[in-house]
């Protein structure tokens, strides 16, 4: 009987707590009514949350630095919170808690999984939070207002493909390193890259793609394996950061300086390897700082000025940019090598 009494005590505790909840909020389920509706708000009151795929990745830190600077200039509050692991369920939980928190006007999120985040982002929109995706997108465009990125995934992938083809003069063998399979943007980039190679440079042999999952150490190990398994490897193409560092390290350690290391990384991070005489490292990214800054600007313009971006518009100050559907893109791929790496500071 003692155990039943204990269970009863626990149940009573629950009833106490949740009964309290029932009293304070007579409503049912989802609609925690709050502010943040369609009207424009004053700058000082705007609360924006920037949520990366995972905390601690250098590229996201760079995005945040640029975004914070711009947010300070505009006078709005920008919080930077994200999951401690690259785990979609953790990110979903975070967004849910933001909804509960009730004081977020806009969420700028880079989804860890293009599918898993859809239901909760829709929930967020229903609760009055303006949702924008940046750097990577969700598969359902009704789950967010706009997707902001520096260049279309297809354009990026095609550029990579073209550059690879040119660098190898149409013949050779390459390895492809990507981040994680569930990232929509990375997958699209790779598809475009593979298509260009298949169609325009059919003599280039492509080994099966490997995934580093956002871990530089893993990228290093994967590239070592690539080098060992393919003594005739000419180039390693890296689509997602921080893989390029791992690749450069692996090539450096192997002493095979004829292998070109090409792909996504921030200039500052890869500079050391780029400047080495025994390595041939070429970077292909986009202006991270501009994206971070302009993402905040766009969010601000939507919330404070009620701006809408329609098909065919361009972003103020960026004549090369375009709006395709709900995708705001700056169409600016950035390639750099040892001669130009010093031009950039991010």
């Amino acid at each position: 009987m003692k155990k039943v009494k204990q269970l009863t005590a626990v149940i009573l505790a629950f009833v106490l707590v949740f009964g309290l909840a029932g009293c304070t909020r007579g409503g049912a389920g989802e609609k925690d009514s709050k502010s943040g509706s369609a009207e424009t708000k004053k700058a000082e009151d705007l609360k924006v949350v920037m949520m990366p795929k995972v905390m601690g990745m250098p590229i996201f830190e760079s995005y945040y630095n640029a975004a914070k600077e711009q947010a300070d200039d505009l006078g709005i509050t920008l919080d930077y919170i994200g999951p401690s692991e690259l785990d979609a369920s953790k990110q979903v939980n975070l967004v849910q808690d933001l909804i509960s928190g009730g004081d977020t006007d806009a969420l700028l999120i880079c989804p860890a999984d293009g599918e898993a985040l859809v239901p909760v982002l829709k929930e967020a929109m229903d609760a009055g939070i303006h949702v924008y995706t940046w750097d990577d997108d969700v598969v359902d465009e009704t789950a967010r207002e706009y997707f902001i990125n520096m260049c279309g995934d297809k354009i990026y992938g095609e550029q990579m493909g073209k550059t690879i083809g040119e660098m190898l003069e149409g013949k050779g063998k390459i390895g492809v390193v990507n981040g994680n399979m569930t990232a929509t943007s990375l997958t699209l980039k790779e598809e475009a890259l593979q298509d260009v190679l298949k169609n325009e440079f059919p003599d280039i042999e492509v080994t099966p793609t490997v995934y580093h999952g956002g871990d530089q150490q893993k990228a290093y190990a994967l590239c070592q394996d690539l080098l060992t398994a393919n003594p005739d490897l000419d180039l390693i193409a890296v689509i997602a950061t921080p893989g390029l560092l791992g690749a450069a390290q692996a090539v450096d350690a192997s002493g095979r300086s004829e292998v070109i290391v090409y792909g996504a990384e921030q200039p500052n991070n890869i500079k050391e390897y780029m400047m080495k005489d025994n390595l041939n490292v070429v970077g292909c990214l986009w202006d991270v700082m501009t994206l971070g800054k302009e993402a905040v600007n766009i969010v601000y313009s939507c919330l404070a000025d009620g701006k809408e971006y329609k098909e065919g518009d361009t972003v103020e100050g960026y004549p090369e940019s375009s709006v395709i559907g709900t995708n705001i893109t700056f169409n600016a791929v950035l390639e750099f090598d040892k001669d130009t790496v010093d031009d950039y500071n991010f």
Partner: protein
Amino acid sequence: MKKITKNLDGNDRLLLIVFLGLTIFLTVTTPEFLAFGNLMRILQQMCELGIVSLGIMLVILTGGFDMSSSAMIGMTSVMVGVLFKGGLNIWASVLISLAAALLAGFFNGWLVGELKIAPMLATLGTMTLYQGIALALSKGDAISGFPEGFLMLGQGYLAGIPLQLFLLAGLVILMSVVMNKGRFGRKVYLLGSGPVGSRFAGINVKKTIILCYASAALLAGLSGVVVTSRLATARADAGASYMFEGVAAVMLGGTDLAGGSGKVSGTIIGVLVFAILGNGLNLNKISSLKRQMLIGIVLLAVLLIRQFSGKLKERRMISGQNK
């Protein structure tokens, strides 16, 4: 306070204090905490961990340890996805995947109970095996495109209450009854207190162990189904952090890692404490990185208090002061 909780021993009292203390603290500092929607979301989020923690507790009660629970979640998740994508009806996929989890659990139990391999070693090996199966079947891919009906389990609400909570509640009641009323429960506790003594007491040690590991695997499998439904994706790494989090919750709930004592209610409160703590941190926009630290601090604090109060009780008992 002591009078009201007279029937609870020190362990449970401490846990209840921590739980209520945390709840009251958050209610006062973070008004949005007590909102019905937020509480329901907490419950929705903690169900997956709650379900697998029940299984983790069960195995720990036998004096063993199942390292493969997270891998089981991932494997079940992937199987559901692969079978469904292969053309099978979603619910058939779920049933077959659960059956596979059960089988895997029997395998775990057989290694520990029949071959008498140390539980941690055996399940470390099976963990790697199940992870591998999950990765191989899924090819590292996440599978999605599940039907609405299936997604309701993880994302739906009935009268404002998340659906998976009903599943958890049912499992909690079932397990409480089995552990407290049935003969099986007594056997498990006895086993945890000492396998040699249990054998002399006439308990079929092997059978009990196998059943425990199988049940734990099935529970992990159920958790995997819920995760898959909530995220609408089948992933090999689903629930990857749940094993450690589950063990922490079970320990917080008062289960002795050496086996032999522990309550279902304790485990559930343990899971709730972590869920509420996490929610409180998120609501206050405190970095996830600090969250790990805080969870560790709470866990250690409770364990230390328990250790010291245990020693205190011992000393009192010895000097005849304990009432």
